[in-house]
């Protein structure tokens, strides 16, 4: 078993263990803590392994692995990490571990809480290790749904509405994103190669400008919603307010970064021309979002886009 797939497999195993063996709060959190501890140790190990591997491997991604999944669509379970993903993985495992501790004394349906939390984590980890658009998208969606239960069951205040709003907006975004992904996929043969979902193969392809102009905003918005970009941020305040602490943490710490990561890794990396053509529009939008969000002082995310855009437009 390779070092990266374990990041997805271990949470799944923990979820199974929780489902079948956990009888009460104590056992549930014991299993979760041990599992997340392993996960954390693995991520530390990954950092070192990465540094070691980086020294000898000059590819964009290391620890790559590629298993054909759906042959007809050329969908692969292909994984790999670079520095950004390693850091994100480490961050996620820290936040999750902390999340388990913070939820130490959860009294209502503890087992289910940990199951949802860890199911969520498998999605997040999977997202960060994927180098295949489809696989990435699958993991992305896996990460969204447990959120509904986490906020809806263990949240506070108007939790049902916040949970519903959050889930619908995020899933709506991912729906838009799926159109973008399909657009990229069906243009990935623009240079005569086969259709592919592999990010790095697509990056080699010169996708026609017209297509880029259409699919960039779709992809961008798809990720921007989870990154809470103005004006798609409205799920965020209510979601944060209602979420239990662990989820809030995970949200601010990790999930919103999914959006930024996605924007970099997919939208701007694969559709550079589209990004350039749309940069003014989204730049204005982001800038507006900054001013707008400054009142809530939560919009630091958008600034990264500003910088990102600035660098893109200067490239």
């Amino acid at each position, binding site marked *: 078993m390779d070092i990266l797939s374990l990041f997805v497999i271990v949470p799944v195993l923990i979820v199974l263990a929780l489902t079948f063996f956990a009888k009460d709060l104590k056992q549930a959190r014991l299993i979760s803590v041990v599992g997340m501890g392993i996960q954390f140790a693995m991520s530390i190990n990954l950092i070192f392994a990465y540094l070691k591997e980086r020294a000898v491997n000059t590819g964009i991604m290391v620890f790559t692995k590629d298993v054909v999944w759906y042959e007809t669509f050329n969908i692969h379970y292909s994984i790999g990490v670079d520095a950004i993903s390693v850091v994100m993985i480490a961050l996620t495992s820290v936040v999750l571990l902390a999340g388990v501790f913070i939820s130490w004394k959860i009294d209502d349906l503890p087992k289910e809480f940990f199951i949802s939390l860890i199911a969520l984590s498998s999605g997040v980890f999977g997202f960060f290790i994927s180098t295949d658009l489809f696989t990435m998208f699958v993991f992305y969606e896996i990460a969204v749904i447990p959120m509904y239960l986490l906020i809806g069951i263990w949240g506070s205040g108007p939790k049902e509405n916040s949970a519903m709003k959050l889930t619908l907006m995020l899933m709506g975004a991912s729906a838009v994103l799926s159109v973008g992904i399909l657009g990229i996929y069906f243009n990935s043969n623009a240079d005569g190669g086969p259709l592919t979902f592999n990010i790095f193969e697509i990056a080699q392809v010169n996708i026609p400008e017209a297509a880029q102009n259409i699919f960039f905003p779709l992809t961008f918005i798809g990720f921007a919603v989870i990154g809470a970009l103005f004006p798609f941020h409205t799920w965020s305040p209510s979601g944060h307010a209602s979420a239990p602490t662990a989820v809030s943490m995970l949200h601010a710490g990790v999930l919103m970064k999914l959006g930024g990561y996605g924007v970099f890794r997919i939208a701007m990396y694969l559709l550079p021309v589209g990004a350039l053509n749309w940069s003014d529009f989204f730049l204005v939008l982001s800038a507006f979002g900054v001013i*707008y969000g400054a009142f809530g002082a939560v919009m630091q995310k958008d600034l990264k886009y500003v*910088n990102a855009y600035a660098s893109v437009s200067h490239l």
Partner: protein
Amino acid sequence: MDFSYTILIPLIPLALFVILGLFSKKIPASIAGWFGSFGLGTSFVLSLYTAYHYFLEGKLNGVYQTFIYKQTWLVFTDKLHIDLGVMIDPISVMMMVVVTTVSFMVHIYSRGYMHGDDGYTRFFAYLALFSFSMLGLVLATNLFQMYIFWELVGASSFLLIGYYYTKPSAVAAAKKAFIVTRFADLGFLIGILLISYYTGTFDFQELTNPEGMLITSWASYSFMGLSVFTWGLILIFMGGVGKSAMLPFHIWLPDAMEGPTPVSALIHAATMVVAGVYLVARLFPAYYFVEGGFALQIVAYVGAISSLVAALIAVTQTDIKRVLAFSTMSQIGYMMLALGVSKYEGHEGLGYMASMFHLFTHAMFKALLFLGAGSVIHAVHSNYMKDMGSLRKYMPITHITFLIAALSIAGFPGFAGFFSKDEILVAAFESNKLIYYSSVLVAGLTAFYMFRLYFGIFWGEDTKYKHTPHESPLTMTIPLIFLAFMSIFGGYIPFSQFVTADLTPFTAHLDLPLAAIASSVGIIGIIIAFIFYKKPNELPQKFANAFGVVYKFIYNKLYFDELYIFVTKKILFGIVAFSASWFDKNVVDSSMIGIGNVTVSVSNKIKGMQSGKLQDYAMSFVGGIVVIAMVVFYIWIN
């Protein structure tokens, strides 16, 4: 020379955090305390060794060298990349020593102070996390790494301040601290982005190289008459203002005293709050050289005003920890202004040296004051001066050490604070008379309020205690004694031989006339306090009455909190945010919800289609055929 072992210094607390955090329920409290103290002790010893090693051998041709061990991490472009690593230069070594010393002392102290507290292990885990973040900040090689640890420090201090999470005021304070500093950090982040964008680097070495291209060649982009780089520096300074609790972002500091006292000692006296000073010192050449040091002047004035205002407020407070909090703010203002008035080369850079020197001594005596205050609070279970008095009889060690610290902070000749303060005053005198006068005034005020505190606690009338106060256990008094030692003798370290702006040692002399003025002002303050508070009498009240409105104004901290609440609640929330949130609610959000509502209402409107009537269904069936046929034949085919 190889300093790569210094990486262990932050990593040991990290390991501690992981272990303590992971097994917080399994590790018995006593072991956790020993374990944490031992780990930090190791870091402490290591950093002392580093300091020894560095200051002894780190020079080349009389100039301190900078050693960098880093790993490239995120690559944006060839030039613009973020590294992780450690940077060894005089100020980072000095800070490392300060942080590990105080942290080690606090660890030992907490074993007594937090004894029997629920969540003892958790506390030590948080302490370790904080130490790790602070050390990471100190050792950062570039702005971005610094920012990361900066935020981590913020987060871990949030955890520590809110440690008593069952207490609403503690939670509120933690939130306030977090939000205020985060708001300031927004400026920091924008500043980083601006600077990195225009210079293409995050690296401290490149940013601060005075001969480098960077500093001189950026003036071309300007905005509102100032170069973009100046703006960047000002924005970065804004982050420092937030963390160091300078005006106008100081409002979180007094409230943050809700945390356990050792935490206040660690965070709010010696380490986190000086991060802002450290940040400016770190980027000092940039501040100094860019556009004639415009940004640096801002630093100077912010520092001076903060120190004066804080000292005034401290005079009136009755909660001993709040007095100390304002005192901290005032002293950090000192450091800021010292940096602000400093120049770069040789003896000209006295202010820089003085600032760092004061940072060092202040860390010692302020930690001592906090720990002493903690010891007192531990004994009488109250934060308020009215509940204290005559404690000298019950707590001799605390009494003596507290006195030493008070003398030190008051600048009494011979104590550590005297030397560092003197250097600051000299630097101010040489460059800006206005600031100098205000600083002298602050020195007097400092002496006054410190001794007001001292007399109020240890002399004064003998309050009737429910339980007779008793001296704290050994584990709490040992750190007190150690820090008292440092508060006396820390001043005799020849700092100018070690820490200077241009990395070249020089010799600083005591400027006797100025020192005399300063210490006499201090002594006058002490005497006034003696008259007022040695024995309970009517004088303070009379004075307070005489000043009336002014007193009330100061007592209420110049109504800063109220001003903030007014500005935030009434103006920001009431007008700007209200309209923004109105827009948010009614336009943005409701367009999102509106999509949902429209869907639901459409759904309700069209329910009549499903009338339950068989023949209506048949009609729609046939109608469907007809419509399709019509569309096909009349629209698509022709």
